C-alpha cells in the first residue's frame, strides 16, 4: 500500500461497468514524510475520502478485486483508508 493525498477528482459517464457509481480520485503519491513525490495515480474510492485528505491506497489488483468482491474488476488502485497520523521514529 502507498501513502497518498487526494488532489482532485475525475468525472466520467462512459466507462467500464466497475466504475458505475464509484468515485474516481486523483491521488498525489507521498513519501513517509508526507511530501509529494511528483507521482500520481487515479484510484477508486472505497472509504469516502474528501479533497486534501491523506489516504492509504492499495495499489495491487488482486487485493482490490478482493475488496470489491469482483473477480474480474479491472481495478488496481483503491483508496482503502484515511490516515490520521504518520509516525516515523
Amino acid at each position, binding site marked *: 500500500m502507498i501513502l497518498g*493525498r*487526494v*488532489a*482532485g*477528482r*475525475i*468525472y*466520467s*459517464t*462512459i*466507462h*467500464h461497468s466497475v*466504475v458505475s457509481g464509484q468515485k*474516481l480520485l*486523483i491521488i*498525489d503519491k507521498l513519501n513517509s514524510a508526507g511530501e*509529494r513525490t511528483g507521482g*500520481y*495515480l*487515479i*484510484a477508486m474510492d472505497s472509504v469516502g475520502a474528501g*479533497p*486534501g485528505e491523506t489516504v492509504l491506497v492499495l495499489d495491487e*489488483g488482486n487485493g482490490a478485486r478482493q475488496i470489491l468482491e469482483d473477480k*474480474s*474488476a*479491472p*481495478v*488496481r*488502485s483503491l483508496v482503502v483508508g484515511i490516515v490520521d497520523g504518520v509516525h516515523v521514529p
Partner: protein
Amino acid sequence: MFLGKVIGTLVPAIVYEGLEGVPMLWVQPLNKQGQDDGPPFVCADGTRMAGPGEMIYWEASREAALTLDPFFVPVDHAVVGIVDGMQLDEEGA
C-alpha cells in the same frame, strides 16, 4: 489508473482471437497537469466510444486484459473510461 489522450486510431489487419472488433487507439500518457508523460502506446478500447482528442484513463497489465470481454485477451494497455471532467485542487495542482 492514469490519464491519457487519444491521439489516433489503429486498424490491425490480423489480430489474435478474441480481439476481433476491439478498437485500438494510439494513446499519449499524461501527467496530472495534462502534459505528455512518456512515449505513446496502443490501448485496446473496451468502451468502444473513445475517439481522437479525447482524454481517457487507462489501466495496464492484468487489469487491462480484464477490461475486455472475453477478458484475458493479450492486451497490456486498455481504456477504462473517458474523462468528462476533471477537478484538480489548487494546492495539489
